[in-house]
């Protein structure tokens, strides 16, 4: 019963009640992923599973046996920040920072979805190629709340980095 987190193999908890979020924080001491609402309403616990963004608070760790999890701690290469992390700093995409790890993981997953052609509720033509306009980004990032109100900076940071790669 193991799971891969940020490239390392870890043993899953025996108690099936342990959420993926509690497992990451309490067992692996990865405190980047945050427990905001613990009921799937805020997005602060967002992590990537095999490249897809999910809410780790609504996930039972045991359900993710054998899967590859990336948390915010797994994004930088040594001391070099992930471009999106740097862009969050450059665009003031945060104030208190609590939602930031979830925002960043979410945006990376969002960009993968867009590259794959996943439409959104605000896409006027469901069959068309995805163009990550500001409206599209706001809709696609709506699962991540920021109570400091840094959403404009967050969208700017995403537009400059992962969204720009999608357009290329």
């Amino acid at each position, binding site marked *: 019963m193991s799971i891969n987190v940020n490239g390392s193999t870890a043993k899953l908890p025996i108690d099936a009640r342990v959420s993926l979020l509690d497992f990451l924080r309490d067992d692996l001491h990865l405190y980047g992923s945050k427990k905001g609402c613990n009921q799937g309403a805020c997005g602060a616990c967002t992590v990537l599973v095999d490249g897809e963004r999910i809410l780790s608070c609504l996930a*039972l760790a045991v*359900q993710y046996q054998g899967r590859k999890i990336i948390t915010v701690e797994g994004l930088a290469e040594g001391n070099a920040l992930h471009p999106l992390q740097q862009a969050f700093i450059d665009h003031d995409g945060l104030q208190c920072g609590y939602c930031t790890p979830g925002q960043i993981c979410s945006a990376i997953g969002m960009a993968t979805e867009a590259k794959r052609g996943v439409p959104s509720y605000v896409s006027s033509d469901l069959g068309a190629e995805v163009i990550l306009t500001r409206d599209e980004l706001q809709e696609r990032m709506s699962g991540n709340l920021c109570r400091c109100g840094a959403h404009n900076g967050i969208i700017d940071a995403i537009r400059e980095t992962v969204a720009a790669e999608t357009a290329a």
Partner: protein
Amino acid sequence: MTPFSYVRAIDAADALRLAAGSAAAYLGGGTNLVDLMRETVARPDTLVDVSGLSDTIEETDGGGMLIGAAVRNTALAEHRAVRTRYPMLARAILAGASAQIRNMATVGGNLLQRTRCSYFYDTDGSRCNKRAPGAGCDAIEGFNRNHAILGASAMCVATHPSDMCVALVALDATVHLQGGRGARTLPFTALHRLPVDHPEIDTVLEPGELITAVELPPLPFAKTSTYRKVRDRASYAFALVSVAAALQLDGDRIEDVRIALGGVAHKPWRAFKAEAALRNGPATEEAFRAAAIAELADATPLRDNRFKVELSTRTLIAVLGDLAGAAA
């Protein structure tokens, strides 16, 4: 959370066997069930994980589509044929929850998600007939802005939370089931119940019965269909009201139409009366209004949700107007 054992099913027969004879629950993505368990609203002693079962989307011989119950919501919404042939379904899914939740949630789980009535969740302070049969309902005289205006009972005024189900009920989908007595299919319109005297029972599924797939019929005119959701904020909120509709015109005459409403009842509400009022009639705003009024004639709004009658009417008129423009 009450302790439980966790087992993973390898196929439908295995799932049925694992779930038999206990207070077991099937686990899909867990986006609703895990939350309900954390709040102790749900207390299964065994979770049978069926999220690894059928996750394929296939074209059927009859020209429809067969969607495995473990297909993730995102996978269904992004499927090319769903987007082009059943846009109301893709749009309804994309209107629901957040992208993270749609990546986790399964089709089967979406069908069986429970109401988000806050009294249902409030295990400490509220009476709820759905959570504790016979306890009473604090929503009827309470804050009921989000509650039902159609088909409610004196026992329960909760609404069904799904967006996807509103499209599926409009499309005349079929639900494939596997149970102790074998396999059967059920029209989607017959899956969810009205509360009547037993609001604790959401669907007509038998104990232990497993949803294995959802089938879409070939419905060529569903290519001219859409889903509109009206909510308190622009995204990531449950519907105040929503409308799924498909329209087929012959000149200015309505040849066929499918309409369902969300956010207004204990189940996804197929608007049969509105459809009957529109069929073979003119595609005019006047006709759309008359159809909406016919559908909502039996509405019994509560203290805080009277606005839903007018909001449903206006949304229905707007959606049909858009589709008439697109179909012409």
